[in-house]
């Protein structure tokens, strides 16, 4: 069976035996950093292409099909175009903040990569407060968005940024509550523990109805947190032309764009880790032979398969639903999702205390 654990272990042992411990750590940092940036670039290309193909499929179009094999190089060509474009800074903009904002958003997205377990034994930093770290760092990106909206000296940008601020801060609560309801079952914030606890079944199946409710709330909150339709008020092109990134062009715009897609990937990864068992294969009770066959599929494939299924769901939302209004958006969170989430948390606590879960 293909396992990434052996490869990472070999590299670790070789580095430590060749260099002294400080130098070895430094090399590990370099390798991990390169991998994250590489993953970032690849994810951007793949997800943009996927979005265009999915939307084309839903809108009875063909989508990109000229550049490269069946249009696969289209996003690469677009990236080249964006790099070549002039990165314009408008007159009257706060130049420092204007140029800083895309990096804040992107670095926030990169940081969340750290505790995610991509495959068995393939995790950068198995911190013991993993889930807390993720929800803390993910809220940094809103600072970047507010910065971009304020520094652009554009009223559309400002409106978009204010909307985005209100939206992300609100929906973080619901996302947090639904995460906590799984933490109650696992009793640990560490990602590796959470995954290990789902060895004989994923939490969405084991946790009864409360887990399913938590999953639905999480998906809604995740869609809102990443500013995707039907919650894409921050960029609402029919109202605010392009929202907070109206004034950005060239590579600075591309960084926002990239960060948006990577954020989708990350929230889906968190969802997959918490509810769908991370890299754990799909097992059914006592069906030993079935479970054995499932084990043969590499763990990284399991993880990415789950993530892309969730990403497809979120893309499906985008191309189906109209956009909510800003007051309806906040009503949905404060009047419906948050109370339901709190009640669900109580219910989950009851389930955990009584031991009703499997």
């Amino acid at each position: 069976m293909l396992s990434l654990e052996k490869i990472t272990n070999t590299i670790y042992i070789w580095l430590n035996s060749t260099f002294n411990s400080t130098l070895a750590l430094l090399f590990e940092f370099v390798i991990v950093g390169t991998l994250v940036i590489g993953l970032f670039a690849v994810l951007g290309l793949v997800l943009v292409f996927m979005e265009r193909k999915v939307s084309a499929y839903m809108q009875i179009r063909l989508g990109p099909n000229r550049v490269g094999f069946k249009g696969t190089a289209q996003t690469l060509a677009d990236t080249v175009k964006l790099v070549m474009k002039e990165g314009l800074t408008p007159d009257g903009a706060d130049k420092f903040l204007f140029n800083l904002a895309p990096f804040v958003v992107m670095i926030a997205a990169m940081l969340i990569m750290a505790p995610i377990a991509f495959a068995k034994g393939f995790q950068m930093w198995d911190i013991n407060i993993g889930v807390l770290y993720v929800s803390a760092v993910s809220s940094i990106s809103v600072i970047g968005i507010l910065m971009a909206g304020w520094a652009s000296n554009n009223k559309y940008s400002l409106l978009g940024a204010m909307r985005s601020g209100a939206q992300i801060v609100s929906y973080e609560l619901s996302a947090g509550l639904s995460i906590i309801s799984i933490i109650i079952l696992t009793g640990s914030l560490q990602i590796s523990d959470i995954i290990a606890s789902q060895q004989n079944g994923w939490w969405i199946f084991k946790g009864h109805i409360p887990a399913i409710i938590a999953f639905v709330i999480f998906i809604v909150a995740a869609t809102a947190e990443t500013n995707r339709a039907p919650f894409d008020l921050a960029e609402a092109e029919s109202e605010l032309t392009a929202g907070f990134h109206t004034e950005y062009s060239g590579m600075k715009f591309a960084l926002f764009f990239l960060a948006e897609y990577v954020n989708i990937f990350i929230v889906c990864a968190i969802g997959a880790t918490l509810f769908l068992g991370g890299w754990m294969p799909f097992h059914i009770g006592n069906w030993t032979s079935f479970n054995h066959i499932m084990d043969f599929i590499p763990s990284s494939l399991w993880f990415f398969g789950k993530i892309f299924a969730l990403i497809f769901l979120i893309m499906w939302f985008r191309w189906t639903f109209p956009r909510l209004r800003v007051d309806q958006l906040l009503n949905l969170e404060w009047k419906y999702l948050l109370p339901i989430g709190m009640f669900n948390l109580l219910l989950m606590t009851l389930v955990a205390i009584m031991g009703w879960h499997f």
Partner: protein
Amino acid sequence: MYRETEIITGQSSMNDEGDMIINIGPQHPSTHGVLQLVVTLNGETIKKVEPHLGFIHRSIEKMCESLSYRQFIYVTSRMDYLSSHINNHGCALCVEKGLQIEIPPRAKVIRVLMDELTRIASHELWWGAMAMDLGAFTPFFLAFRERETITDIMEDTCGARLTMNYIVPGGVMAELHHDFQKRVKAFIKLFREKAEQYNELVTGNIIFQNRMKNVGVLSKEDAVSYGCTGPTARGSGVQCDIRKLYPYEIYDQVKFDEIIETGCDSFARYLVRVKEMYQSISIIEQLIDNIPEGEFQAKTKAVLKLPKGEFYTRVETARGELGVYIISEGATTPYRIKFRSPGFSNLSALDHMARGGKIGDLVAMMGTLDLVIPDIDR
């Protein structure tokens, strides 16, 4: 009567210190053309909307004065380009009224068929654009698929896809294409199939309904006093369908209902347009097998000269009442011509509807007014 005018000094009372004024347009994705709206905002809430017009004013009325009665029809196709057949129809009716020509029955039926097909095409495009204003992209593409079928039918007969110039004084320009009936029947079948799917996707959607209901309320009295016509006024409960009130051609012989909703909000206006498409389909179904044989054009003189006098006719376009007013001095060209375009009056109600609403709803309200800017500017 003499009235002392009051000179306003200092700042206008509407714009307070903390207000934000943003320009929506002339280049903006949701104004459907070059319309500029100066919107005064308090946070997300609208305090005032001021439409600025004239970006594509081409002085069509003045141009018409230097063109003969046969020629000026071609210019009117460019006014409300989504219902060019109906524009031509209104002008042709006015000229025929002046000349007192009786047009052959075949031409009458063809005209009505073309009008209703145009109405469906226009409403289809509106439906897609409306959903896009609310942030749903997919309906736009679905709507264009069906609209394309109508445009193809038009292309067969008229040779054009947008500016038809097919209805002329005395009848219609040319004989129907031999595939016309077959293709229209195929379209009716397709439409009935797809319309259900559309209602499922958009009309029944809970987000969509929440965005539309109790938004952009225009009461019956306001609709009348702003001079709104067409689906905009019928959504407020005003009975104003010219096809029913002042039937022209054969509209008094076909069976159809005037759709009136009393919701007065965006959703009522939406429902009126959606249901009107079904009514148009039913009119087409009644006529498509009963096109009388005969001439498609009455015998007219080579040079048309309207007698001295004033002539006014009105037709129901996809957006409302189009009035054509011709003053003739007995020459080969009109002395003065004036169009009463539906979009202009409907747009004037926007400020009233939008006040107190959210900026996101402004776009939705504009969508339900179904604005075509060349129709407003002319």
